[in-house]
């Protein structure tokens, strides 16, 4: 059993700088959990506290239900894969992988066996005698992985391991790590700033900001039911569009953008939930995917827009335009070729809209 639990864990640096502010989290056995958030949100610090490389200022940390606050990294039975691989430059690939085993005085034959096993899994068998400087970025990352795997740890930790790789290699390694997780069946905690990595790899995702947890949920739940504007804007690419405005009572409920250029009637089923929010400042959230060339249903809102930027991606295109005083991005099928300056009709599926409290950023209502 390899669960990890944090209870009110904080990391406080001198002068009251709180890198991590009282977070509580339980990671299940065999789970692939992703910590995601912008730079400086505290995700790496949290990971390093789990690893034991940073001391815990307040709170308790449990690995396998044992309190580990004061236990050395080497005794926590975990392995960490670093962003810059952290391979030992003066040792061969074999020695790099075997280093931890040699320190634990494991039998030479056993070391040979384990290293060979790992290098077969990661396709490193031909590279065992090379030094890190003679390896490509992807190969180095695999050696770093091998070094972690060979120790048979209870928990794998990853600190943005793919950030230094080019885009194509990143996609390849993503699937390799996911496959590795399925194969080894070990708890993995993965830190990244890339929401695509988070969405594609995680069983659950922890979205962090300013040292606190914003939301913990499965990828799809985060996408469909974000709890605030931060999570809503962070998950999904291109990000959700926000338009400030008010809900007014006008034979039902009507949304008015602040500059009053964008007005539409809310579907009836929302009236009950949103009545109490009338005349208060709210933020309307529209995902780029909610725009289309055709009306999808009775609740579709028709808008006239002028294209300011056109980005053809092949199977889909991104159209940028002004709506309600904001620059909006929409995602539409790529079949129609557009030009900057074109004035066209678009439809918004108002069944898929999000409403946020302007003051707190919290979600008021979502489907």
């Amino acid at each position, binding site marked *: 059993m390899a669960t990890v639990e944090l209870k009110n864990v904080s990391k406080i640096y001198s002068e009251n700088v709180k890198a991590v502010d009282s977070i509580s989290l339980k990671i299940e056995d065999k789970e692939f959990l992703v910590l995601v958030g912008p730079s400086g949100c505290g995700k790496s610090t949290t990971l390093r506290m789990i690893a034991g*490389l940073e001391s815990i200022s307040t709170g308790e940390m449990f690995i396998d239900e044992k309190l580990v606050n004061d236990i050395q990294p080497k005794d926590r039975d975990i*392995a960490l894969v670093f962003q810059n691989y952290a391979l030992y*430059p003066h040792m061969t690939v074999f020695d790099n992988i075997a280093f931890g085993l040699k320190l634990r005085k494991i039998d030479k034959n056993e070391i040979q066996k384990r290293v060979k096993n790992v290098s077969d899994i990661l396709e490193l068998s031909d590279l065992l005698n090379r030094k890190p400087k003679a390896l490509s970025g992807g190969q180095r990352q695999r050696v770093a992985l091998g070094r972690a795997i060979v120790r048979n740890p209870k928990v794998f930790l990853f600190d943005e391991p793919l950030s230094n790789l080019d885009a194509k290699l990143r996609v390849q390694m993503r699937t390799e790590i996911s496959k590795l997780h399925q194969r080894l069946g070990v708890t993995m905690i993965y830190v990244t700033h890339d929401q695509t990595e988070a969405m594609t790899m995680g069983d659950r995702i922890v979205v962090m900001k300013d040292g606190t947890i914003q939301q913990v949920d499965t990828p799809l739940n985060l996408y469909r039911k974000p709890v605030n504007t931060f999570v809503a804007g962070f998950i999904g690419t291109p990000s959700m569009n926000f338009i400030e405005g008010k809900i007014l009572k006008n034979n039902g409920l009507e949304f008015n953008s602040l500059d009053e250029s964008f007005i539409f009637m809310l579907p009836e089923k929302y009236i009950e939930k949103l009545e109490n929010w009338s005349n208060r400042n709210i933020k309307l959230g529209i995902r780029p995917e909610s725009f289309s060339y055709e009306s999808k249903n009775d609740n579709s809102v028709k808008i006239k827009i002028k294209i300011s930027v056109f980005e053809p991606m092949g199977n889909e295109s991104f159209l940028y335009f002004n709506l309600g005083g904001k620059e909006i991005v929409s995602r539409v099928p790529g079949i129609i070729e557009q030009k900057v300056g074109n004035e066209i009709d678009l439809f918004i599926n108002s069944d898929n809209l999000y409403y946020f409290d302007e003051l707190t950023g919290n979600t008021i209502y979502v489907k």
Partner: protein
Amino acid sequence: MKKITLHIFLIIAGLLTLAPFIWMVSASLMNDGHASVYPPRFFPDEVTFIQFERLFSRLSVSRNLLNSLIVSFLVTFISLIFNSMAGYAFAKYRFAGRDKLFSLLLSSMIIPAQVTMLPLFLMLKSFGFINTYLAIIIPGMANIFGIFLIKQYAMSIPDSIIESARMDGASDFQIYWKIILPLCTPILVTLAIFTFMGTWNDFLWPLIALTDSSMYTLPVALANLMGEHTKDPELMMAGSVITIIPIIIVFLALQKYYIKGIMMGSVKE
């Protein structure tokens, strides 16, 4: 045309620089009196090793050579260990007062060595170490220049490598021995050359600290020789050759590390 002029100029400059050394080696191979002949001869008429024989048999220069070797190797080896430990600690460990302590050490480099020689002499005398190898070794066990060099170099080792070793289960000493030292090889070799040469060539301190001629290191013995045998330039040249040759060998053998060490500085990876 320019290239040829440049080459000729460089060859001439090179020869001029080498001339005194060539003369020194030549003279050491000459018989008595042949060096002061007029017109002066650059190369010996007949090569003889009699000067060297005299040095080793009659004047026990072999003992002085041994002293120099022992002292230089020991000081180099011991100071490398202490300097590298201190340099690594200053570079990678966080402890209270670290930066202030380092600044204090650096600022002490302003003090000229001659100022410290009297207090040092009195201190070693009270321990009874004067006229022993320890008189040379103890002051040389660590030095700020070495600590500084290693600290600057060690700072360029990525923290993640050290953290990775920690996670792999290495103790602090194991990290020092298996990771830091191998990675610091260029600067360690550079420092070894500096220290060896400095200790080998040191004249003033051994002159003060060593009182028996049997304990003298080569530079002191050579000066002694000069005092007693001013009329034997061939003998003195032979003494000089013995003093210089080991250093030249060490330097030539390790110079590629030396150059690399100076150039690498804090740029790594």
